[in-house]
């Protein structure tokens, strides 16, 4: 199956989803981007350069780890984890960012902008901009700036300017709008490094292409380690880039079940979640440059979303997944905030792994299902990011009293020093 073959459909459409819904002023810019992307995709040396860059800068290939203890404890399927947390900057976001960085050079542009939710994508973009010598501005919702200060700290120290967006819900979607506003003004010298497989064509295809390196590696690695392919493959879905990345390694296998794990927040019926496909609350709409399922009201205005994981806290979902969901090719489940906290403790204690809160959503569903499967089955989970660098968020999520006392002490110390 080649979902990116548009020859008998409409360019940039996956079923009825996707497309380009942008102001006329950006039309020329998006055409230029599409043309450049087509050249890169057709040029094998571009991909070679991309892979070499990730090997030498970010530590790829990332390993696949067998979770021996958890598999034994649950007594079901054998659990394997793809370790994209071991990338430089701590998540899969760097794959896309390095790819788009190379593309920015080809476009001859000198400035990059990016939206960020959890801060991982902004962090990766600031890193790339420092390495490639680009000016860099990161837009981040004010709510996210407040809950992700460590990532803001690193972005600023890497030389990026971080703008706290005060409009709307002050989260990821508002940061995307602000990037659009910057882009319509500065497109002549600026490339917009969109951080997930959403937005107008060619972004969903382009981001998926860069992230496909995860699935290519994982397929070989699991074959090498187990001599066979997994029965089920799991990944968390915010916009859908890490999941698209991993799933592409297995799309052609009709017997492998692909499971996207969304943010269930406070659960079904709470309206405080970000589950577009797993729950029934979303409907088809057009916003932020593309058509997909959005969490919106009947009049087409976006609803409030929620997740303990800022990186999943988003109104829309990758249009490719909207289509694959319709076709029954990818199954969608949700993990609630409460389940995520429990599972995070479990993976830390039994395997010494600290997945990011986003990635933990994939673990929740995978572990739940693995327990019901047979011992000779295999599940593969994407660990899209590491949690140890999000210590503030995780300490909060786990309500750790010793940590709180430490922070209070630190605050007192700073106050005294300021005198």
């Amino acid at each position, binding site marked *: 199956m080649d979902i990116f073959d548009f020859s008998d459909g409409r360019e940039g459409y996956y079923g009825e989803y996707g497309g*380009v819904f*942008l102001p006329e*002023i950006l*039309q020329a810019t998006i055409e230029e981007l599409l043309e450049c992307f087509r050249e890169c995709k057709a040029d094998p040396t571009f991909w070679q350069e991309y892979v070499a860059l990730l090997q030498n800068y970010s530590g790829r290939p990332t390993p696949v780890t067998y979770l021996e203890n958890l598999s034994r404890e649950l007594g079901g399927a054998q659990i394997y984890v793809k370790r994209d947390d071991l990338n430089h900057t701590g998540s899969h976001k760097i794959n896309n960012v390095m790819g788009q960085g190379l593309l920015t050079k080809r476009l001859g542009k000198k400035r990059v902008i990016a939206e960020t939710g959890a801060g991982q994508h902004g962090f990766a973009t600031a890193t790339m901009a420092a390495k490639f010598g680009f000016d860099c501005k990161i837009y981040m919702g004010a709510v996210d700036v407040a809950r992700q200060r460590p990532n803001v700290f690193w972005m600023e120290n890497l030389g990026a300017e971080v703008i706290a967006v005060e409009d709307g819900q002050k989260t990821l979607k508002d940061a995307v709008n602000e990037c659009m*506003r910057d882009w319509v003004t500065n497109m002549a010298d600026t490339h917009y490094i969109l951080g997930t497989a959403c937005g107008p064509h060619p972004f969903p295809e382009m981001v998926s292409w860069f992230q496909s390196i995860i699935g290519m590696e994982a397929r070989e690695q699991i074959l090498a380690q187990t001599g066979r392919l997994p029965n089920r493959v799991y990944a968390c879905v915010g916009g859908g880039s890490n999941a698209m990345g991993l799933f592409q390694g297995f799309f052609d296998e009709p017997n492998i079940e692909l499971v996207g794990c969304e943010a269930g927040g406070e659960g079904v019926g709470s309206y405080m979640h970000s589950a577009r496909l797993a729950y029934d609350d979303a409907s088809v709409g057009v916003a932020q440059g593309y058509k997909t399922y959005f969490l919106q009201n009947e*009049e*087409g205005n976006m609803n409030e979303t929620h997740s303990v994981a800022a990186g999943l806290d988003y109104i829309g979902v990758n249009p490719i997944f909207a289509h694959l969901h319709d076709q029954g090719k990818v199954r969608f489940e949700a993990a609630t905030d409460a389940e995520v906290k429990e599972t995070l403790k479990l993976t830390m204690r039994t395997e010494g792994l600290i997945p990011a809160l986003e990635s933990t959503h994939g673990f929740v569903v995978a572990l739940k299902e693995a327990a019901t499967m047979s011992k000779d089955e295999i599940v593969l989970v994407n660990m899209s990011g590491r949690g140890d660098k999000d210590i503030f968020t995780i300490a909060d999520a786990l309500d750790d009293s010793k940590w709180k006392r430490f922070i209070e002490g630190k605050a007192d110390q700073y106050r005294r020093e300021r005198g």
Partner: protein
Amino acid sequence: MGLQSYIAERKRGKDILVMAHVVCGYPSFEENMQELEIMAEAGVDLVELQFPFSEPSADGPLFVHANEESLKAGTTIDQCFKFMAEVSARFPFKVLMMGYYNTAFKMGEERFVERVKEAGGVGYILPDLPVEEAVNLHRLSEEAGIEPIILMTPTSSDKRLAKLGLASRGMVYAVARKGVTGSKTNMGDDVLALIERCRQHTNMPIGVGFGISSKSDLDFLRGHADIAIVGTAALKIWKDEGAPGLKTFFAELMA
């Protein structure tokens, strides 16, 4: 009477027309009505009524805030259409719906066209709907006799302008510069060159918008553009100086 002939008729009396803008429900529908009274009195020819949307990504800070506050106050699409009907019945100027495509998409394109028409609107401006995606909506509009307003921009290639020209009906909205609504545009050769390029690709009257805020801007456009489109500047005056300020603003603008 179609938009194009309305514009032609109004232009018999003056050399440039003015299109103004209000965001429905911001600061309130009552204040919208007061603004519109002042605009009508000053002789404004066309008004865009913006239906608020939660993701107004083509708008600048003042309109973003206006969209947000209006929705927070509970503005609904029904209220906007009802207001549109009152406004088009009451004032001599013609009314256009302005908003984002999701508003039309969610209610269904057919219903959208019907409702604009029922409310007395002569057309609509949906800045995030490119012509490629508008084929069905444009066909429905043609059948109903309302006009989709096409935007032409300084970054549009000649090939693109030709395509946009073919789709243009009623009038064309020439975007004077890159960026979002709100900040000032330097009226200069760039703007004249843009109008000139637009004229090569359409016979429709041309309105110039984005950053128009003063009589000198209007004087500059006189003899080049058919319509000057005033958005943010008027809202800013209303916020800062209220009714007396807005009266003076339009009196001076259109003197």
